[in-house]
């Protein structure tokens, strides 16, 4: 019999019951809540007169709607947009009523759901983690089974601590070799999506493996798993190793001293067996990956910084040709234009993909001693959490950014989806470290280019896309 994959093991550890129709009841260890997808779920609980099954499985924070400007220190009342304010207040009230731990807007532990879970040790290896947000795949970096859910499922998890789910197929994405200098986790995952497409992972749980993945820090692994969803997979994972264990150690909600050894022994098993069967395997060579820039309106429309924007005339498939033409038109680009000729109007460094301390260090290394270019209207740095912000300030990164002409903001989702006032104007190009470049994602008519933090900083200081390696020494 073939061995088991990491996903197989996690699934088995949490299967409560197999149902007649082939689906299973899966036990959920950690449920993370935010203000946008939870209000109807709480209301549903109240209407049905139900209580949450297990309060201590839940943790909440506000992130999507919160302003990132300093005036928010005045409190929830200071949120100008009424629907945003109501959503934030509603989460506060729901958490207070049910006794759920919430990091409120001005708590130093507040931040983006997918940043605070790992940061607090609320995300642990071997857990099932869900949240009403598709980028919950991020938490899979810890050898956890993590995915996004809808509002009715949020209610289902609150009420039953379980989800009804069907087991997915296994896909391994192997990246072997050494990443070139200046190339990061973001470039790996963009290259993977460019290779397999946005539906390439549909129906699969992805495990990222290979020496280049093992060489990544936990932050880098989170960046990669975060974007598994952009490859069509709800789940992305990396096996547990010493780095995982080291990262978790000493975090506020990590196992206590007495339980630590027992936990670590269990976690070390969270790897795919050598003879495990994968239904599909994708391979990439790390040496061949260059800094990536997305040019179109889907994350798979991505190329290396030294390439040219595609020419629809060179595409034989009429459907693909049509989508290239539409994307070029929306993005205001012409066929065969070199990526480095694309000028940027705004720069956004942040989001659950790239707003952790290592990301900010990468960006600061480029920004240091330079100035934001004159044609760039705004360059935002939005830390993923209050604690990331604090750490960055302790390292003096805030000063580097501010001196270079960047704005240093309070934590939240910010310009990743423009639910708060941070938005692109119509037609503006943005070098963004976020994860989605759909039409209008960062503001109506906005043109998003997905890049790594270093690449975003490089675009900020030169005013156009440039190979970040030319600015690093």
């Amino acid at each position: 019999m073939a061995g088991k994959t990491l996903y197989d093991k996690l699934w088995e550890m949490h299967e409560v019951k197999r149902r007649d129709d082939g689906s299973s009841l899966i036990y959920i260890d950690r449920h993370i809540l935010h203000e946008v997808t939870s209000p109807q779920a709480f209301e549903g609980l109240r209407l049905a007169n139900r209580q949450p099954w297990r309060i201590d499985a839940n943790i909440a924070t506000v992130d999507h709607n919160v302003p990132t400007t300093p005036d928010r220190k005045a409190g929830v009342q200071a949120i100008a947009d009424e629907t945003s304010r109501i959503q934030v207040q509603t989460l506060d009230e729901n958490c207070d009523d049910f006794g759920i731990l919430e990091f409120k807007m001005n708590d130093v532990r507040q931040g983006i759901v997918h940043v605070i879970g790992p940061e607090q040790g609320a995300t642990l290896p071997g857990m099932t983690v869900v949240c009403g947000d598709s980028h919950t795949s991020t938490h899979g970096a810890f050898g956890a089974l993590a995915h996004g859910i809808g509002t009715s499922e949020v209610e289902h998890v609150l009420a039953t601590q379980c989800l009804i789910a069907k087991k997915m197929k296994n896909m391994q994405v192997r990246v072997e070799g050494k990443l070139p200098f200046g190339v990061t986790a973001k470039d790996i995952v963009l290259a993977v999506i460019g290779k397999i497409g946005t539906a390439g992972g549909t129906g699969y749980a992805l495990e990222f493996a290979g020496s280049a993945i093992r060489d990544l820090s936990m932050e880098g692994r989170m960046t990669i798993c975060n974007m598994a969803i952009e490859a069509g997979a709800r789940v992305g994972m990396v096996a547990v190793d010493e780095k995982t264990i080291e990262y978790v150690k000493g975090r506020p909600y990590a196992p206590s001293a007495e339980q630590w050894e027992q936990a670590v022994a269990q976690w070390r098993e969270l790897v795919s067996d050598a003879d495990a069967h994968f239904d599909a395997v994708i391979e990439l060579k790390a040496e061949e990956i260059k800094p990536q820039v997305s040019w179109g309106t889907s994350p798979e429309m991505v190329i290396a910084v030294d390439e040219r924007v595609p020419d629809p005339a060179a595409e034989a498939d009429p459907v693909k040709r049509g989508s290239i033409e539409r994307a070029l038109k929306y993005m205001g680009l012409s066929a065969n234009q070199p990526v480095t000729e694309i000028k940027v109007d705004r720069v956004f460094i942040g989001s659950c993909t790239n707003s952790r301390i290592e990301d900010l260090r990468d960006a600061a290394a480029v920004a240091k001693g330079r100035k934001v270019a004159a044609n760039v209207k705004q360059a935002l740095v939005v830390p993923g959490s209050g604690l990331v912000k604090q750490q960055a300030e302790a390292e003096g990164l805030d000063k580097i950014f501010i001196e270079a002409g960047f704005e240093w903001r309070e934590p939240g989702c910010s310009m990743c989806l423009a639910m708060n006032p941070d938005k692109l104007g119509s037609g503006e190009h943005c070098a963004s470290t976020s994860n989605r470049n759909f039409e209008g994602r960062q503001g109506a008519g906005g043109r998003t280019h997905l890049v790594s933090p270093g690449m975003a900083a490089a675009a900020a200081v030169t005013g156009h896309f440039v190979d970040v390696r030319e600015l690093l020494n």
Partner: protein
Amino acid sequence: MKAFTQHTGLVAPLDRANVDTDQIIPKQFLKSIKRTGFGPNLFDEWRYLDEGKPGQDCSQRPLNKDFVLNQPRYQGASVLLARENFGCGSSREHAPWALEEYGFRTIIAPSFADIFFNNSFKNGLLPIVLKEEEVDALFKQAEATEGYQLTVDLAAQTVTRPDGVQYAFEIDAFRKHCLLNGLDDIGLTLQNADQIRAFEEQHKAKSPWLFGAIK
């Protein structure tokens, strides 16, 4: 979800075919963070003379006196009598939410749109399909008789008129079971509560750190 077993209630006859979900609850009311609050805007464009906006105090709005639900004799109705293809249009679950919140427990019609039909069951609202001529007879009686009531018995699958005449209706066994017992997805999962608890105990024994860390 509320269980549905037997219900006797006042009948409101809505004599129009192809009532779509945008008429049941217009799109401007879908922005809400709530699953409730749609009742006052049920059939908004027919019910009021002014233009409906989210967050209005509907008690202050001018009523369309001609609309059937605004007539004094139908106040407190809980059985909606309707014509064919009721609930067509978009998939919004807000439509059954609005009907249910207004006070309807059941809708009787010769046919329903598919998605609306499904959504109704999820929300404890029973859609009943009767024959065209049966529905016709009910329309005639309801319009002729003030205070006209019908009794619906889900277990027996019957609709009983005040004069004792009974109509039988069909319903899928699984849906009947869920509705009789007030079971939604959550309710069904909770039928396995003992199994979940047993799993939880064994899970806790293996991985005690997963419990109680967050307070």
